[in-house]
């Protein structure tokens, strides 16, 4: 059981997708009901498996010691392995993926358009994400990384909003651009390491001895840069971020949730899983730039969010800002204060998890509003299709009409602006403390984010929910039970980890200590 659980986590959704095809052959494509249920059951099983994994997970064990690790030869000629493993770095991401996938299926219950395609692609996406977080072989990692891309492209391109094709292509090309660099890094690592291997565990030992140069630059530096571009696009680090607002806005709700909740984290996960342990020397030299970029993300993302009049786009830019905290936190790995380094690194990983739950909740809530009103303009744009509405407030006073929904939005907004007792606060504070132990001035600038993030959330909250009720919405229905089912688990996690972050921290900190030790060993 223990050694098959990781494989199952990846392939249960694949099996679900295959099962759907059988159903389609037997009963025709039209019956959306089957596909929803198959998807719900498979992701449900996956979630249970993830739960079992969590219960049996021992944070003290490394990948090589863990009973869950699977290491089989796959393509022996190139020493490519089917190598799966889980440690403190990946387990929060695995749990997040399983949870959000399940929630997303439930939230997609009303999808009727080509349900077979939608749900089967979603399951493939799920499998790809799970694969990325579990792969300990770089080649396998790369395959899953690419596997994810295609379903995502179709999910945005077919089920998205009005500009879906443009958004899908932009997303695809951006990511592919990054993938090319990652592929180069992958090949370089393979050929320069001795023995040739893709194993991320072995590479930790062998990459250090590479001292080749290419075009007058050290190969390790080039590999670092190539990986950096690949991961930076996913995070996304400004200025590689413009795929994000568009893709988030155009994607259907559930896909936005996955994009913001899981996909963005792959970028920072990549740094921590691959760049940091393999190339600690380069990381140390690059840390300052990473921190600068983190601060730019925080400030630029938030400043842009303030100007948005589309609620979903505002939430999308808030992700840019919130991922900046992660960058600042991981840059603090070089801190000479042990408390600073630990606060930064652990805070960053916690922020990855917490942002996953918070932003998922935000996107789900935005989606609910959109489902009811068919728009999400905080303020109608000047070139709006109905000229009499242009420049007017899109909503107003909904708080009196839909109190339960409003309560959840307030909860999510306050979580987003880092209110203590909700999970985002702890992780952001830890990122700041870590950052401050190394980069004082930069972190002081970054703390402006505390204010800026509050500005756009509260402004949007006021314009949508406070003030006199906009009569257009006098019959707006409040939240349904199915919708409650999707957001209550997230709200519970946000509150729980805000009040009691120890379980999350204890789960991740040995792994983060390992990475810090590697980084600190080269200073």
């Amino acid at each position, binding site marked *: 059981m223990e050694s098959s659980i990781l494989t199952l986590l990846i392939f249960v959704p694949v099996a679900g997708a295959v099962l759907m095809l059988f159903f389609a052959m037997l009963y025709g494509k039209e019956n959306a009901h089957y596909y929803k249920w198959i998807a719900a059951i498979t992701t449900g099983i996956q979630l249970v498996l993830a739960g079992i994994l969590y219960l049996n997970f021992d944070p003290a064990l490394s990948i090589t010691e863990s009973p869950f690790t699977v290491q089989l030869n796959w393509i022996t000629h190139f020493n490519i392995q089917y190598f799966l493993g889980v440690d403190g770095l990946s387990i929060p991401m695995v749990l997040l993926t399983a949870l959000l996938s399940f929630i997303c299926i439930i939230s997609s219950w009303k999808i009727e358009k080509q349900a077979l395609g939608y749900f089967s692609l979603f399951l493939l996406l799920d499998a790809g994400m799970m694969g990325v977080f579990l792969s300990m072989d770089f080649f396998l990692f790369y395959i899953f990384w690419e596997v994810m891309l295609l379903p995502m492209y179709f999910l945005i391109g077919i089920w998205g909003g009005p500009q879906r094709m443009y958004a899908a292509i932009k997303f695809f090309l951006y990511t592919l651009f990054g993938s090319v660099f990652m592929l180069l890094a992958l090949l370089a690592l393979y050929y320069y390491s001795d023995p040739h291997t893709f194993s991320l565990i072995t590479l930790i030992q062998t990459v250090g001895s590479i001292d080749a140069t290419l075009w007058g630059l050290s190969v390790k530096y080039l590999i670092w840069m190539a990986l950096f571009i690949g991961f930076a696009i996913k995070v996304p680090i400004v200025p590689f971020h413009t795929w994000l607002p568009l893709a988030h806005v155009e994607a259907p709700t559930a896909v936005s949730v996955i994009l913001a909740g899981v996909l963005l984290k792959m970028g920072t996960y990549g740094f921590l899983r691959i760049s940091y342990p393999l190339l600690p020397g380069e990381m140390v030299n690059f840390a300052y730039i990473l921190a600068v970029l983190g601060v730019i993300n925080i400030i630029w993302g938030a*400043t842009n969010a303030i100007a948005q009049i589309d609620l979903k786009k505002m939430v999308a830019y808030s992700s840019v800002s919130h991922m900046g905290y992660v960058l600042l936190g991981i840059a603090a790995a070089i801190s000479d204060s042990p408390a600073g380094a630990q606060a930064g690194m652990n805070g960053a990983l916690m922020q990855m998890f917490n942002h996953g739950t918070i932003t998922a909740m935000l996107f789900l809530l935005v989606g609910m509003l959109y489902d009811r009103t068919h728009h999400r303009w905080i303020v109608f744009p000047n070139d709006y299709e109905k000229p009499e509405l242009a420049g007017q407030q899109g909503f107003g006073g909904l*708080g009196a009409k839909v109190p339960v929904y409003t*309560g959840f939005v307030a909860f999510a907004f306050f979580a987003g602006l880092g209110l203590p007792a909700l999970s985002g606060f702890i992780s952001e504070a830890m990122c700041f403390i870590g950052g401050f132990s190394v980069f004082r001035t930069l972190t002081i600038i970054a703390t402006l984010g505390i204010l800026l993030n509050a500005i756009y959330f509260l402004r949007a909250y006021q314009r949508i929910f406070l003030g006199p009720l906009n009569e257009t919405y006098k019959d707006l229905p409040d939240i349904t039970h199915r919708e409650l089912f999707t957001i209550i688990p997230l709200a519970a996690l946000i509150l729980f980890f805000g009040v009691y972050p120890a379980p999350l921290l204890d789960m991740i900190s040995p792994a983060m200590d390992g990475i810090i030790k590697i980084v600190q060993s080269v200073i």
Partner: protein
Amino acid sequence: MENYSTILALLNLFLPLLSFVILIFFGKKIGNSAHWVALTLIGSSLGIAVSFFANVFVDTGGPILETSVPWFSTGSFSVNLGFLINNEAAIMLLVVALISFLVHFYSVAYMKGDPRYSRYFAYLGIFTFSMNGIVLADNLLMMYIFWELVGLSSYLLIGFWFEKESAADACKKAFLTNRVGDIGMFIGIMILFLSIGTFQINGLIDGVHNGAFAGNMGLLTIAGILVFMGAVGKSAQFPLHIWLPDAMEGPTPVSALIHAATMVAAGVYMLVRIFPILTPGALEFIAVVGGITAIMAAIIAITQNDIKRVLAYSTVSQLGYMIMALGVGAYQAGFFHLTTHAMFKACLFLCSGSVIHAMHHALHELKDHDTDPQDMRNMGGLRDKMPITFWTMLIATLAISGVPFFSGFLSKDAILAGTLSYYHLHHGWTLFLPIAGFGAAVITAFYMFRLIFLTFFGKPANDKVYAHIHESPIQMTFPLILLAGLSFALFFTLPLSVNPIDNHGWFTEAVPMIENAAGLDMHVVEEGIHHAHYTAMGISLMVAAIGIFLAVLFYLLRKVDAAKVAGMANKLKLYNLSFNKFYIDEIYNIIIYKPFLALSWLCSKLDWDIYDQKFIDGWGWLTIKLSDKSGEVDYNWLDQKVVDGFGKITQYFGKTLQSTQNGVVQNYLLGGMLGVLLLIILIQQF
């Protein structure tokens, strides 16, 4: 014993939260009996606070309760949660619980019939919870957490009637302005943590004492000033005071509880807690900010016509006093004033609430929606109609004006002695501090009596409204009477002194002077205050008398026409300056808010319309153009010309050679021979 106390402290903290949870989830079902839930739970919390307070009189030589448990940790980064109940905390707990309970009680009548009645009590519950958290916290991070949570509850309560745009604006403004201060506080906490390695207040004090900042006291000064930033926001000090007057959009009992007695005093309380690590440099800064706030807000209060706004600016001014007291080292006086102020200011606000309530009902009966029930110009002569409100408000006014026998006299006097002594020790510009202190004292007496005279004396502004005015019900007047009672000096000087102008009593015993670990010699400060005591008392008696006398002249006897004086003052634009609150809101709007929104708009244009649409999509465009070109080259040239060219040539030759395919065998043979010959020649060439 310790476990027992810990449980009590936990209950004290969490019972109000329980009230919040119950009322949020079951409020609809509970409906109009929501106040029973809240009163029971807050009442229990009050009982516990009283039991802690009883310990103030038992000298055990240590704090009443000090306990701490690990919250989360990883290696060297660990955070604890804990309680530290010393005498100051016990007093503060009682103040919070008492006022909170009275406000709950008062609200039963005041909020009757509100459609969100249960939610109102729920919000009061989460506020009391958060405020207790600040008081109990033994470490700065925990304090910061509850600090932000009171910000949340303040946001919810200011915006309670959120259908009003003004309320919706005010709650946002309050939260954001507070966050500006909180950023500073957070950075300050980070400096302290990274220098000493703990968030725990006692740990920090020990750290400073043991020389964690030795040779780098400048950093400690900066850290102190940064942490103080939090107090600047929360306690509405200049330049972040702008949110508090707007916060009056909330229901009046809320103003009494949060924006007068307790939350806004949290900044002062926090400084009391961290006082030992504030360096003389930081304290100097704090004193100046407090002094500016005290005098500036008092000046603004003179010209306001809205009864709540007068009280709001009065609160800002009094908070300035407390902060200034801390700054000049009069630690005890600052905290004393916090306590006395909580009683009389809560009383004043609840009285104003009683007046507004009466006005509101009168106007409601007359179906008059245009008259502002809070504008004092619409009142007048209410003394006879609302005797209890009048007398209690008068008592509280005497207290805030610093009249002997009332509590404000004692605490204000102690602060003024502190400022005088500070001047004696430092000379020079520090003269500003006593001037601000005594100046604000004159003005306070003046505007408070102006409020009393305009509201309760003179002729009613509108006889029809006057006819409909009634005294408020017992639920509202009972807290007034109680709080007015607590505004007498005697309550703070028992049992050591029954001489009401002597401030030695249980309070001074309970809150002794403490050592400062950051380089301030408290003995010198104490000595100085002791010396300045009688001078300060003399001057403060005089200034209170002047203020009251002027108010009598202007507004009771009407010997001087206030409008004329205002007009004269306005020759220098002085009246407008005060009436428009020194234009600070407008200045922020012009130099910060609007430019910032414009900047964010510009950034979004830059980010999307220029960077993405032009630059990033430019690459796409370039790629498409290039591939068009390469496609053209590929097809028009390579394919059509070169490849097809070969074809065409072949075709041409084919056509041409077709004629040779005429079936004449000799010709074929000849061709073959020529071919072979050509091959031989070619081969020989290589």
